[in-house]
């Protein structure tokens, strides 16, 4: 139904743009990762030195480990918060469903910065939470671990990414035909058995998508550590950021970025594969 010129006309511009502004930059980044900086000068020598540095340097490995740890914690906490919420909204809320859904969506789009800043003001030694606790005489002095710690980073990122996990989980729960739940009851399975054997398995694709989102975005986050993390919570993206800033070593920074990029692509492949296996109908 569509002529060849029509198809070429619509495909060409986005292809060109994407090629120019996505493919080429990634290729450049890859190229940079194979170059070197010596004495503050960028040398276009081809070498794997940066990758070697990355994987043998204890400092970098420790940061990588901490980053993975934080990202995994954020993913888990987000799931623990958003799955029951999504289930409640999809299966139990009746008249208020639409309203509640909007209420969950709204904070999703409120500025990252605003939310990070909010936690900063709450968790500090002079912050609102400490003030609240002291006001109620629960504590007598400021609790210091709240801010400038990995705890604060996990807390803030969980707060930011819970709605991100909620969306796909809710969508996949909504897609489950209610008749399947009725059929399960009809055949003798109670509410708990029905949840475990019908609802949970069928919601896995959405859960997988949301979990990947939360994990990957937390992995590459550099703002939360700067806002609420302090020096004990440096994440891998902070290292990259400083390598492109004060520490001036673009090749090394590019090498780390390439690793993150490859990890994301690998995860995407994996989830796509799994989704195909688990997505039904």
């Amino acid at each position, binding site marked *: 139904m569509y002529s060849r010129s029509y198809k070429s006309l619509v495909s060409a511009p986005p292809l060109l743009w994407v090629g120019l502004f996505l493919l080429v930059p990634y290729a450049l980044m890859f190229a940079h990762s194979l170059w070197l900086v010596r004495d503050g000068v960028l040398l276009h020598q081809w070498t794997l030195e940066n990758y070697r540095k990355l994987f043998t340097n204890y400092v970098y490995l420790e940061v990588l480990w901490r980053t993975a740890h934080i990202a995994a914690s954020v993913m888990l906490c987000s799931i623990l918060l958003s799955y029951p919420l999504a289930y409640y909204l999809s299966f139990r809320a009746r008249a208020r469903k639409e309203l509640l859904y909007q209420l969950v969506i709204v904070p999703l789009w409120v500025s990252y910065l605003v939310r990070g800043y909010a936690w900063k003001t709450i968790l500090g030694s002079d912050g609102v939470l400490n003030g609240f606790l002291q006001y109620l005489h629960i504590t007598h002095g400021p609790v210091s671990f709240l801010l400038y710690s990995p705890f604060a980073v996990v807390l803030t990122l969980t707060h930011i990414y819970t709605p991100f996990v909620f969306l796909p989980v809710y969508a996949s729960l909504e897609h489950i035909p209610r008749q399947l739940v009725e059929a*399960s*009851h*009809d*055949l*003798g399975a109670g509410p708990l058995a029905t949840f475990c054997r019908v609802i949970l398995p069928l919601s896995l694709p959405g859960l997988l998508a949301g979990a990947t989102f939360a994990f990957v975005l937390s992995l590459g986050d550099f703002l939360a550590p700067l806002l609420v993390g302090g020096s004990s919570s440096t994440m891998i993206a902070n290292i990259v950021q400083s390598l492109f800033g004060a520490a001036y070593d673009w090749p090394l920074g590019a090498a780390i970025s390439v690793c993150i990029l490859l990890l994301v692509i690998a995860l995407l492949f994996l989830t796509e594969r799994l989704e195909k296996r688990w997505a039904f109908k």
Partner: protein
Amino acid sequence: MSSTPPLGPAPGAEAPLLELRNIAKRFGPREVLKSIFLEIAAGEFLTLLGESGSGKTTLLRLIAGFEQPTSGEIRMGGEGLDLLPPYKRKVNTVFQSYALFPHLNVRENVGYGLRANGVSKNETAERVEQALAMVKMQDFANARPARLSGGQQQRVALARALVNRPELLLLDEPLSALDANLRKQMQSELKALQREVGITFLFVTHDQEEAMALSDRIALLREGALEQVASPREIYAHPATAYTAQFIGQTNLLRGEVRNGIVNCGVLRWPLEEADASATFSLRPEAIRLSVDGARRNTEVKFRGAIRQQLYAGASELLEVDTGAGQVLRVRVPACGLLTGEHEFVFPITDAVRLKDA
């Protein structure tokens, strides 16, 4: 037709399996079911027949447990059924959309209810095999529902319900998604299956031919109330109301008056020993025949009419006959070639069934 005593099976039967007593269901301001009294006998094939909106599916869902009646009670085997959640009732449903679990294969689907109720793996496997054999789906045991055709899915849904040996099987328009030929085939298989397993079937459909072919009894629902409950032959030969007469099969509605022992309907007259009143009669098209020699026994009515339309149907013809005075009757005669002009027709008086006020 509401608040009449329970419409049950033939007298002399044992205690009914299922009793619906004064069941009503309201959704907000809408009254979907009004004061239903019904008894279903063990082992019978009862069809709930009605148009969309008549409440038949709602009634089914009440029995399955997915809805609660607004008032009234449901009893099975003498015990209150409406107090139990669906997973505790010995009732299973075959859904209109089949509702097969997409993430389980056929074998796992069929065994679902058994596993949920703690039946051992060995016994489950055995009973699943039997059930699949019963619906001729053994070869598809490892397939996922997405790979099956509509007819195949329907059989699996049936097996999944039957394998649990319920006391009552509910079928919600299970054949409506199938094409005509497959439908006819499944009807006959379903009937044979019910005979074989002896389980009580409660079948919902809007297709009156299907209801007549399959049922031991038909319960005709109209706007939430039971219009008539009787066997197919009884309901066809003696419809209680004009609605029933027109919904099941085709009929001619004759409106007229009884005066001094004579019925006057347009140009038709015959003797009737009843009080003076206005009356409506149902006369089936096939009860009328072409008069060959103009003779008429005194148990018959004769009339003359012009043939306005003739629809050929293979074995028979459906004629539209104008008797003059604005009265048009439909007549079904065996195939006889093209007819024109005026002809004479006769029908037995007893075939004009008097209806209650329409």
